[in-house]
């Protein structure tokens, strides 16, 4: 049973909500306008002949003196399951980004050590981001980089443990394992968050791109393999396909 006083309180509450909605309406409209003010860049990346796995030879010549760390005494053809999506990045470069400082994500991106391979092989981040390096192999790794944007040496730590590194300068950071020479990865420290790692079928989409002229770059494996100049307009979609 509802009392008279309660009804009055509810009526007053509805008035406050209604007033709030009226006050917020212009803001919502602005927000909607803001979303529409950006463009989208999308397309498909095709890498001819790219296998979903990589094979390499890693023979532990002197491993005959201690328990094998690789599980095989020949390790003749280690098959690492690296998907296309772990090797490709599409990202934008533009003069307008130089003066801006984007907020790095609160959730740390991860560069995994699993099956004697880094996952992904290339990791794009915005400057200021902290990356986690968990060890998911049942053996030691020693992740390090001597690249100028950020030198680090994480030492040896076992499965289940992780170390973190913050990247405060833009550039290309080559990452290696001091114990397993075949392990390598690249961290792309970018000045803006307009990048994407395509899906395994190669499709990608970068949304909410501010209107302007940019260079779109297609990174595959260890390097940029193609660049193009594009112009993005509000509310429009620019399609850029890459074939390598």
């Amino acid at each position, binding site marked *: 049973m509802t009392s008279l006083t309660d009804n009055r309180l509810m009526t007053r509450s509805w008035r406050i909500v209604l007033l709030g909605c009226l006050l917020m309406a212009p803001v919502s409209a602005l927000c909607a306008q803001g979303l529409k003010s950006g463009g989208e860049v999308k397309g498909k990346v095709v890498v001819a002949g790219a296998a979903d796995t990589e094979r390499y*030879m890693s*023979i532990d*010549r*002197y491993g*005959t*003196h*201690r*328990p*094998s760390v690789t599980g*095989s*005494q*020949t390790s*003749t*053809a280690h098959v690492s399951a690296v998907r296309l999506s772990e090797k490709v990045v599409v990202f934008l470069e533009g003069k307008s980004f130089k003066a801006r400082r984007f907020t790095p994500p609160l959730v740390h991106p991860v560069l995994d050590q699993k099956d004697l391979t880094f996952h992904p092989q290339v990791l794009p981040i915005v400057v200021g981001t902290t990356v986690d390096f968990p060890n998911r192999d*049942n*053996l*030691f790794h020693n992740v*390090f*980089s*001597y690249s100028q944007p950020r*030198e*680090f*040496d994480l*030492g*040896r*730590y*076992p*499965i289940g443990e992780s170390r973190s590194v913050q990247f405060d300068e833009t550039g290309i950071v*080559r990452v*290696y394992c001091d114990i397993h020479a075949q392990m390598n990865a690249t961290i792309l420290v970018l000045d803006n968050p307009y990048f994407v790692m395509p899906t395994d079928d190669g499709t990608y989409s970068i949304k909410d791109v501010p209107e302007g002229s940019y260079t779109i770059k297609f990174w595959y494996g260890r390097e940029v393999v193609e660049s193009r100049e594009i112009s993005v307009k509000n509310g429009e979609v620019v399609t850029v396909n890459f074939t390598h």
Partner: protein
Amino acid sequence: MKKPPLILVMLIALGLNADSQVQWSGQVSAFGLKSDRSPAQRVLNGGDPTLGWRLDLFLDGRVTDDIVALANVRVSGNEYLYFDYVALRFADIAGLGINFQIGKFDMPFGNLDERRFPTENFLFGLPLIYEYRTSLPNTVITRADLLNNRGRGIGMRLIDLGVYDIGAMVFGDLGDLHYALAVSNGTISSASGGQNDNKDFSKIVRLAYTPMMGLTLAAAGAMGAYLPNDGTPIPRTKAPEDYLQKIGEVDLEFSRGHFLLNGEVVYSEWMVPLENQDARLSVMGYYGEAKYTWFPRFFTAARVSGLRFSQLDFSGVQRRWDYDVFEIEGGIGVHLDRNALVKVVRRHTKTLGTTDPHDDLTAIQFAVAF
């Protein structure tokens, strides 16, 4: 220059076969050093400053998924070609998890492993147990010559430069336990350069256990005849096979974070046919070395190693059959690049039981892997 062995030809042939895989890698190192001036064996180039170089090439050839051919070729300042490692490895025979290797390779004794190479060695030289020549040669010797040889460095090493010898080995893992059983033409202290020079093979056993990630504890033992059957008369008309070397060791490897530690203790004894009676000569050797990476690119390392010899009766006086030696080596290393390293090392050697020769050494070494 030696003739290229058959396996090298095989590896090249594999390279021409599109279905096979051959992989080359290697390293080049160059150094400058200055020893004290003395006739001691740890002195290089008589104490005059000198430069030197070394090239190591590693060839891995995959014949099938379970058969690989391996070869190491080494060339150093004297420009001779050495084939240190020339072997075929058969993995997982009959699906039993047992591996087999035959050819010339490092015998399963000790834990030197890749640290024999300049890019992996934290310091300049090898521990005394691998490098120092005792006064006992692998030939028949008299008591007087043995006494005269002390400190001259013309005899056998304790573990002959990591023992690349010709042999055959089965090895594998049983959980965290690793085993290796091998036979070789030569002995641990006197590796064979070619065919077996007596009727005996050395028998070698090694067990290694990894109780936790980063820690490996191991033990090895070996036994074999060390005198060659070259026609030299042996006192009391015995055969070379009657004179054995028995050697055992324990070693450990520990690493965590930026710290690495390796250590080894070895005990060896030889039955020696001296002129009036057989004698049992023994030596105990050890080393411990540690490396710490302080920050990216930069590390420091240190090693202590020593040899302690047993006593023998020389004309009624008990004397050590060689001088005890203690050595300490320290250095700093800087990685110029991922595959390029420069090290500066200072080594102090102390010979006990006699006038200590001045045989300290300072070296700078550049090493590049490719």
